[in-house]
């Protein structure tokens, strides 16, 4: 069949997978803007749906696509290092509020993982699923590293990140109204701590101050979880 021959010719070079990814990403962003930026449907979800539908339609196996797209994903390493820059820029915020933040962060970041793990465990989820959703509130590049360390599925983790981010953006405004909280620093911090990059984008829509505190919450949660979760996982694994 000529269509099959064409597909195998195109997919001999990784540029085909790279091109598909870029096209889906840009188109997803365009559609997101046209839809007036809905909170419940982030641009990355639109782009991922487009890409998955395209792969299924042209019959390109996901494993082939992923291997070729590695030409893009290897940039995740330096991109994670790049997060050190915004973290440095927020050091003044950390210094000004170090006392409440140092008490709040370990408790809140631990609970962000434990609530979900506890519910999943009670509902009888397998150890693989638990390892895959443990880093659900951590920003993607760091979370991928953590999940690989503790032996979870990266694909499931990324799905969990998407759901968590969207849920956080929706629940924070709801809970803030319920708890009578108007301080944008608190709202921003909660968005970043629980909802990683998706929550941070939402916080920047509220105000720059909320955005700065969201980036702070996101970075600190990422570091704290990256340092603690693999250790905790090894301890529990050794004990049980």
């Amino acid at each position, binding site marked *: 069949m000529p269509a099959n021959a064409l597909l195998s010719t195109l997919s001999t070079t990784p540029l085909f997978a790279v091109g598909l990814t870029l096209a889906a990403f840009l188109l997803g962003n365009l559609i997101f803007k046209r839809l007036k930026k809905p909170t419940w449907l982030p641009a990355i979800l639109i782009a991922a749906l487009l890409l998955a539908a395209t792969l299924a339609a042209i019959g390109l196996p996901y494993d082939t696509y992923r291997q070729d797209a590695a030409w893009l994903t290897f940039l995740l390493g330096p991109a994670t290092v790049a997060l050190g820059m915004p973290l440095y820029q927020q050091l003044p915020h950390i210094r000004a509020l170090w006392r409440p933040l140092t008490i*709040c962060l370990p408790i809140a970041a631990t609970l962000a993982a434990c609530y979900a793990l506890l519910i999943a465990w009670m509902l009888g989820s397998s150890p693989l699923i638990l390892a895959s959703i443990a880093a659900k509130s951590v920003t993607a590049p760091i979370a991928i590293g953590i999940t690989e360390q503790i032996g979870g599925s990266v694909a499931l983790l990324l799905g969990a990140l998407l759901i968590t981010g969207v849920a956080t953006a929706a629940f924070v405004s709801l809970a803030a109204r319920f708890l009578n909280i108007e301080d944008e620093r608190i709202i921003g911090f909660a968005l970043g701590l629980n909802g990683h990059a998706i929550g941070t984008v939402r916080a920047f829509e509220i105000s720059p101050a909320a955005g700065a505190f969201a980036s702070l919450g996101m970075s600190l949660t990422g570091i704290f979880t990256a340092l603690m979760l693999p250790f905790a996982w090894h301890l529990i694994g050794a004990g049980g």
Partner: protein
Amino acid sequence: MPALNGFLWLVSYWLIGEVTVYFTGLPVSSGVVGMLLLTATLAVWGRVPSTIAAAAQPLIGLLAMLIMPGVVGVFFILDELAGQWLAILCALIVGTLLSVTTTLWLLKRLMEKMHAR
């Protein structure tokens, strides 16, 4: 070529992270080690060199695209996880509602305490 110069910095820090993880056996990813080392270096310098900003800014903007090949994978494991989805969704959504509420309440209390002093 300021961006290329900055990119070399980022790659070098990642490689230093890789070496550190290899020799110490820390269960942390090389990217996180590199990120912390970069933050510490910038804090010592007291400013962000324009070369590093030129490389870091666009890379951070592209994060969503860099994770897309992985995100797409979730649609291809839907079958493998059949029957588990309800538990996963429930854990993520209820867990997130609980942790969002806890974070907001806790930080509000802690900041009120600080202002009371």
